């Protein structure tokens, strides 16, 4: 076991080796390890097991077109996947030909369109063919051996100390297919990683000890601080173990690599290691992701009830990062344009655009959801359309084209576009997750705040998005919070509803950490005035419905829904070529080049009644998870008897979910993981598409249906279901993608395989078609913060990280007296001995950390286990316990996120293209904050004031 951690963290004690990589440089270490694995296990020696895996389960053999580079004639840049549409004759005429990627057969040397690409996933011709069965085809990994002379490709690099973009020039073997110059993803990957083969042009590393050419072990040593030989040895051991154990090498990653601006590049560098070595889809191997991404095992029933999909579809589900970025006005403080991040010479799509512009573009093209959507009330839009006697979608498109209607995201500071009512349900937004906490306080709430940043200068302001001279403060009219303790959120709320805890209510629980679904049961009734969430929301719904009778009644609403993953929507953008209707590059067509516009009838007087009953859409449309639609007639009939039937009102005749236990029962009955009948049904549905055998995975449990009483008696192991990618058949443990690997079920991607290469325009522009190292953002260059290590009157500048506390779940338990008695009893910041010495800080001194985003007051913990140049303020230390006033502002000190802010990476806003399509809790911009720096100093007066 090897622990990679910048400090001697709690988990390091269990490791055999500790690699103290500099914060945010894990990607560089992984790239160098990839270099070693490609060289030693693919090029110097062919590892049959790895190569076989690569051919079957990855995009490595697929062909990519090469385009002549604009600036350097004779050199090329990787273009797009070659598809059937590029071939001649029959292949080009195939259904969805632009989504059928191509590889070369070893025997014939001819292009082959294998089964299992996205082209097989939708439409009639792909039925029974969406699988990874290669038949007699033996894909060529490399384009070597053809008649064409190898060419040099220009590849991006970002390893300059300031993070600026540079270029690599490295050769790949090529072939000519259907008149186009192509190479394989594998060839490009070797070029990218700098693994040389004979006869290829370009500049290559001289060996592992070449510190200048990416991506050698010596190259990473300068960046990560990890000794080159150790990095190489551990890469070798990682791969050798995978070979020896049949793929049981694993990378467990945490929030430490998740919350960087370029965490996606870190991920891809990790995934390269586990995928090259055939570890994905193997129990005991692969990539164990950041646990913050929860797994609701009974997902189908849960989604149906959580989104009210039994009564109305679609629900409005938003990407929170972009939402808060706009509505807490953090976009006003971004002084750089999106093309700052682009690869050298490739900034095209982002030229002159700010992040806010890019968000607006993503929204209007239907890539990502945006709510509020329009600058007019969608209820009124529906009425206007009706008055005009026109279909709503047509009317809206027309209004948009004329410019009479705009997307709200294009003017987030317009009062008509403010969010007005915010309900925070058991989430300590302002004490934990609100990155850019002070911006939230200032602009969203309008309270005192410690924002010290200056707004973007006029030449760096958004172009498409309206800039209002006065930044609004206090956008919200009402902040409602449901919680069972006082938090940094409740103290700012207008209304607080006391909530029951887990031990005072019925609920279901499942995570990705164990294979069970189990019940929460009340040990006691909710004390005092507290209520269960179920009770609270039903009460609100009842009163809302009563008042709606005189105000809202029954209205038509129009929902702008993004192009969704696992639906034919993901065929909207062939080759990932971006066309913006607003720029006149295409027509606005709902569902293709802009969001789907769906009219929904809303009976506001019946909200409460509908909440208490399972609605009729489940009979007519079933429920769909990841492209598999489950028919639920049998389950609904069962629930009529199990829960009883509603007699009156909007839900008359429907199964009841009036009580929390009813809702739990319905979730269990309507999910494959907890209902063997549905699991087998879902697999049969999937079999019709894949043409392979799958239903046997759930057959052993076809008659098993887990009831709420079962989960109350004991945690119950779940059933293998098409809702998830792992098999638990025969009592084995869940591991993702085992069904893909063992049953040749395609991944839900363009090629149907795991991707190293992404050919979307925006990723090309960013220089991220392939795994690449991108360093932490340079906050000095972007925001004029001092350089790390600089020491001045205001203190020493350090990297500011906010890892999870070992004793709390976000802010939960942080304020518990026992836990506080076992630690330091208040807010703390961990510092290295060296940094403390620079500014005269001793252990337990009051310190103040200040940057443009805010101010934090805490006590210092000085320890030699911390690396120089980095401080930790553990996540979610509420401002409510022993937080004094700051010297800087005289106000109460902030939370850990008072020094952070949101920054959005444009590529996270891509949608409408194969696996790069929106799905809830699946794709969207990350909330990242680890790139941040701060000044920290000893407080002049140690007798602090409260």
């Amino acid at each position: 076991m090897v622990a990679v951690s910048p400090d001697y963290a709690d988990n390091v004690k269990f490791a055999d080796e500790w690699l103290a990589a500099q914060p945010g440089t894990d990607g560089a270490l992984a790239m160098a390890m990839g270099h070693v694995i490609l060289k030693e296990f693919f090029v110097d020696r062919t590892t049959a097991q790895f190569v076989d895996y690569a051919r079957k389960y990855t995009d490595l053999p697929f062909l990519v077109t090469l385009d002549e580079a604009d600036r350097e004639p004779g050199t090329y840049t990787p273009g797009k996947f070659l598809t059937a549409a590029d071939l001649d004759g029959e292949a080009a005429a195939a259904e969805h030909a632009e989504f059928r990627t191509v590889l070369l057969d070893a025997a014939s040397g001819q292009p082959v369109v294998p089964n299992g690409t996205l082209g097989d996933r939708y439409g009639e011709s792909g039925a029974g063919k969406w699988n990874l069965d290669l038949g007699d085809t033996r894909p060529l990994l490399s384009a070597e051996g053809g008649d064409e002379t190898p060419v040099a490709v220009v590849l991006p690099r970002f390893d300059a100390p300031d993070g600026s973009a540079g270029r690599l020039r490295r050769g790949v073997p090529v072939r000519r297919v259907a008149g186009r110059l192509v190479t394989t993803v594998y060839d490009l990957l070797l070029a990218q990683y700098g693994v040389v083969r004979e006869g290829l042009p370009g500049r290559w590393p001289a060996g592992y000890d070449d510190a200048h050419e990416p991506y050698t072990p010596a190259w990473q040593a300068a960046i990560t601080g990890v000794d080159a030989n150790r990095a190489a040895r551990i890469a070798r051991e990682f791969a050798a173990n995978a070979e020896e154990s049949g793929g049981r090498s694993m990378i467990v990653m945490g929030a430490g690599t998740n919350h960087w601006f370029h965490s996606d590049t870190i991920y891809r560098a990790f995934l390269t290691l586990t995928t090259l070595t055939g570890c994905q889809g193997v129990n005991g191997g692969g990539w164990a992701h950041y646990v913050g991404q929860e797994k609701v095992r009974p997902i189908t029933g849960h989604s149906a009830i959580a989104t009210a999909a039994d009564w109305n579809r679609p629900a409005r589900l938003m990407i929170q990062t972009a939402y808060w970025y706009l509505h807490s006005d953090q976009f006003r403080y971004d002084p750089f344009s999106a093309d700052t991040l682009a690869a050298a010479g490739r900034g095209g799509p982002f030229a002159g655009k700010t992040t806010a512009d890019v968000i607006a573009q993503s929204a209007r093209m239907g890539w990502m959801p945006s709510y509020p959507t329009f600058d007019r009330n969608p209820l009124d839009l529906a009425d206007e359309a009706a008055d005009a006697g026109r279909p709503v979608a047509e009317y809206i498109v027309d209004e948009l084209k004329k410019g009479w209607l705009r997307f709200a995201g294009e003017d987030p500071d317009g009062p008509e576009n403010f969010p007005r009512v915010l309900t925070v349900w058991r989430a300590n937004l302002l004490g934990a997750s609100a990155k850019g906490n002070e911006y939230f306080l200032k602009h969203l709430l309008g309270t005192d705040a410690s924002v010290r940043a200056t707004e973007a200068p006029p030449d760096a302001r958004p172009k498409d998005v309206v800039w209002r001279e006065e930044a609004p403060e206090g956008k919200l009219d009402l902040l409602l919070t449901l919680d069972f303790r006082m938090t940094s959120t409740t103290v700012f709320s207008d209304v607080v509803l006391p909530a029951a805890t887990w031990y005072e209510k019925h609920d279901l629980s499942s995570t990705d950490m164990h294979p069970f679904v189990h019940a929460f049961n009340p040990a006691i009734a909710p004390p005092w005035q507290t209520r269960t969430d179920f009770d609270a929301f039903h009460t609100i719904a009842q009163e809302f419905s009563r008042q709606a009778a005189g105000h809202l009644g029954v209205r038509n609403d129009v929902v702008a829904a993004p192009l969704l993953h696992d639906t034919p929507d993901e065929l909207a953008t062939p080759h990932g070529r971006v066309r913006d209707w607003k720029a006149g590059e295409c027509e606005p067509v709902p569902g293709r080049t802009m969001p789907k516009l769906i009219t929904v009838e809303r009976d506001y007087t019946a909200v409460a009644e509908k909440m208490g009953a399972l609605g009729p859409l489940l009979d007519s449309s079933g429920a769909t998870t990841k492209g598999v639609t489950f028919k639920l007639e049998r389950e609904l009939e069962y629930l009529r008897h199990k829960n009883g039937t509603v007699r009156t009102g909007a839900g008359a005749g429907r199964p009841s979910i009036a009580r929390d236990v009813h809702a739990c029962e319905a979730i269990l009955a309507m999910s494959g993981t907890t209902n063997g009948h549905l699991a087998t049904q879902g697999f049969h549905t999937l079999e019709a598409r894949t043409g392979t055998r799958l239903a046997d995975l759930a057959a052993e449990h076809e008659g098993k249906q887990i009831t709420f009483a079962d989960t109350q008696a004991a945690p119950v192991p779940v059933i293998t279901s098409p809702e998830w990618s792992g098999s638990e058949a025969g009592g084995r443990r869940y591991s993702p993608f085992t069904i893909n690997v063992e049953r040749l079920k395609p991944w839900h991607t363009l090629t149907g395989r795991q991707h190293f290469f992404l050919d979307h325009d925006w990723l090309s522009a960013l220089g991220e078609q392939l795994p690449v190292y991108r360093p932490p953002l340079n906050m000095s260059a972007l925001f004029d913060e001092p350089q790390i290590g600089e020491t001045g009157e205001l203190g020493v500048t350090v990297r500011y990280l906010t890892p999870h506390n070992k004793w709390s779940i976000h802010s939960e338990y942080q304020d518990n007296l026992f836990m506080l008695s076992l630690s330091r009893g208040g807010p703390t910041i961990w510092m290295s001995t060296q940094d403390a010495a620079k500014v005269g800080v001793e252990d337990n001194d009051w310190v103040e950390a200040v940057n443009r985003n805010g101010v934090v007051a805490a006590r210092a913990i000085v320890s030699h286990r911390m690396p120089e140049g980095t401080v930790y303020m553990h996540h979610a230390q509420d401002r409510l316990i022993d937080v004094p006033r700051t010297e800087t502002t005289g106000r109460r000190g902030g939370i850990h996120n008072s020094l952070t802010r949101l920054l959005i990476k444009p590529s996270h806003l891509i949608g409408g293209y194969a696996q790069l399509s929106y799905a809830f809790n699946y794709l969207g911009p990350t909330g990242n904050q680890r790139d941040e720096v701060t000044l920290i100093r000893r407080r002049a007066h140690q007798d602090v004031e409260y």
Partner: protein
Amino acid sequence: MRVMAQMAMVMNLDKCIGCHTCSVTCKQAWTNRTGVEYVWFNNVETRPGQGYPRRYEDQDTWKGGWKLNKRGRPALKAGGRFKKLITIFSNPVLPSLDDYYEPWTYDYATLTNAPLQERTPVARPKSLITGKDMKISWSANWDDDLGGSAATSEQDVLLSEVSQKITFEFEQTFMFYLPRICEHCLNPSCAASCPSGAIYKRTEDGIVLVDQDRCRGWRMCVTGCPYKKVYFNHRTGKAEKCTFCFPRVEVGLPTVCSETCVGRLRYLGLVLYDADQVLEAASTPDEKGLYEAQRQVFLDPSDQAVVREAERAGIPRDWIEAARRSPIHALINTYKVALPLHPEYRTLPMVWYIPPLSPVVDAVRDTGHDAEDHRNLFAAVDALRIPVDYLAQLFTAGDPAPVDTALRRLGAMRAYMRDINLGREPDASIPEAVGMGEEEMYDMYRLLALAKYEDRYVIPPAHAEQAHRLEELATECSLDYEGGPGMGGSGPFGETSGGAAPIAVENFHALRDRQTANTPAAPTDKATRVNLLNWDGKGSPPGLFPDRPTDGSSDADRDSDGEVEPKP
């Protein structure tokens, strides 16, 4: 041979994640009361570090445990009964509250009560001793995860004993967690220190308890215990300590700290030992011989002679069977991977530890491809970050050999199991290299790595026929004790009347009091008895002074050299 049964614990430090769940659940169960706010029967220390209370291992200062007197027999370091009696009114050597920590709470109520004001309300720390605002400067676990190492690491008592220089540099960082409870020693110096005979070691299972009826609050036990695991309740004026959760153990349940252990690192079970050998073992001249000497006190429960003697001593059949299946016996005597904590204190502690592995200091395996190759692993054991010397100071009075053996066995187990895990032919030379057989190694793997609940905790319930003598399994009305609810409430004569409530009942009342109290920090019940803080110095309320010796034997016990017969 005088066979006795002892309930004992082993903690596998290789698994401790330092979560402190044990501390919290123990505190919640046992010491969430006034008078013991600062008391953690179970605590978890980060090592290197000072521990709790600070520098408790410094016996030059605290005078805990035993030393050998000039006749080579164990004598209390703080002096024997005679010295105790003549100095009974002077302060014994014991840590001040500052050495533990000043307990505090917060004015949480202000968060809900504060009026509209300019700044957000904040709950400030208030001392539970003075009730005043305070700046927190020490806690029950101040140096967690090497926190404050720059300021306080050098205070680790063991550092002065470790031969190699330990530097607190980033690159050389190491740490591990040491959870501690009362050691329930075979030769408890706390019991020997008590002038009132209030501390006793139960004959049935060896659990060391304080008789709250007999305790007079002299606090000699606090001094006498070298582990500082006897605490003074400043409200009742009596000593309290870890009870090994006897109410649970008597009915076959693991202790609270074990049951709730997230890392599943605790093992509970019986050992049989020869009570006649205890004194001799404690008298071993060479401190480095104490580990082995203590091991020799344990008896082999499979030996028919031992079984016969055990039965003769009245140890029930199922207890002997339990001793045979005992994980403690296996870890200490069969696999020899568990070691005692500070055997040099000569108390023969009964909570043992498996020392932790740690990352290697530097690349020592540049030759091998296979991380689990045992040849590489043995090289790695020599280069572990935690100096073997440091562990030896904790567990073997400085002898590195047993620590080294334990670490090599742990390493070899991994190397051996890797072959099996990969479906290869297992390599018998690996266990052989550490003096073990293949089956033995596999069994050790089952116990340490799979660590099933039923294998970790082999706890024979107490016997009904013994119940009358035990605390928890009452054969009579459990509330029918002097001053209990069955007797019509507390006695008429104020705080000096009435006896101690049986502990489980007291806990129930404490719980009820907490649930109904208006103030969390100051329960209003007056069920307390002798409170030295309230005593005005006039008269002698019953229970304040020890009874005069009446059997005439005390003179014979008295030893000017501090020598006391080990108990039992």
